[in-house]
């Protein structure tokens, strides 16, 4: 004798089970939503770090003094500029952050008037061109110095005061 009087209860049980499973799934998935925006947070942090370091390096130690950044640019020491920049970036407690890499570019106006951008630090050996790099920039005022070292680009207006743009490409290897 098969009695089918309880079929409604069976259906209700199945429906309740499904609802509970769905509720549990939704509750678990709300705790970790990985939005597309989250992927850019490390980039934003890296960009802010680089900007802050450049701003710090562009601040003179004394009134009417010359900032570290201007000194590096005027003497054409792009490699030293990179070393100092990276040293300042990694100057913090905990993780030494050895994977940080940088490449320094200088944008200036040629004597002819058009804009030229040139790398002034040695190219990084591990650079592949596929790095997820951020670019930070800083305007630098040069007071004009006829005796710029030969490392500087030839077509820079050496004797006149000018404004140049220091660009640093920053990434983690």
């Amino acid at each position, binding site marked *: 004798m098969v009695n089918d009087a309880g079929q409604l209860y069976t259906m209700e049980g199945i429906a309740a089970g499904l609802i509970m499973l769905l509720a549990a799934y*939704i509750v678990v998935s709300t705790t970790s939503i990985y*939005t597309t925006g989250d992927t850019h947070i490390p980039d934003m942090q890296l960009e802010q770090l680089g900007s802050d370091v450049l701003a710090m390096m562009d601040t003179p130690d004394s009134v009417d003094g010359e900032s570290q950044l201007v000194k590096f640019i005027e003497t054409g020491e792009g490699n030293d500029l990179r070393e100092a920049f990276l040293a300042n970036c990694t100057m913090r407690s905990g993780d030494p952050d050895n994977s940080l890499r940088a490449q320094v570019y200088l944008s*200036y106006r040629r004597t002819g008037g058009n804009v030229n951008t040139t790398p002034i630090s040695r190219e990084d050996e591990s650079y592949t061109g596929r790095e997820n790099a951020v670019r930070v920039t800083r305007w630098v*005022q040069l007071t004009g110095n006829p005796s710029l070292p030969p490392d500087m680009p030839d077509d820079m207006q050496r004797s006149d005061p000018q*404004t*140049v743009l220091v660009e640093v490409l920053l990434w983690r290897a």
Partner: protein
Amino acid sequence: MARLNEEGQWIVLMGLLVAVALFFLAVIVNQSALVGQTTAEGVLEFPKNDIRDLREAVFDYVDVYEMYGEPTRKQLRNDIIEISLERKNAVVSFSVDDPQDILGHEMRPVTIHYNNGVTVYDETTYH
């Protein structure tokens, strides 16, 4: 129908309420993904550091304004304007006027205009 027991109707009603509540939760979960995306895009697109940097460059220019004659000043101005256009895709213009007496300080009115196609920034200040 005669054999059906109607005493459990409030259970059905609660079930309906739970379903509606779940629906609203699902809508909220959907929106949170969208909010994260637009916020991050807004933050990334806004050229905060560019504008700050430009302001300091202009103020540096104002600081040396009196040291140089008009040809040199024009060079410095064109440096900023043309490098901004070439390297930052930003249209920039700025002007400096004669000093005015502001609460006992001699300050120059400075107007700065910045437009990179997404963000437009205009400022009039005294430096």
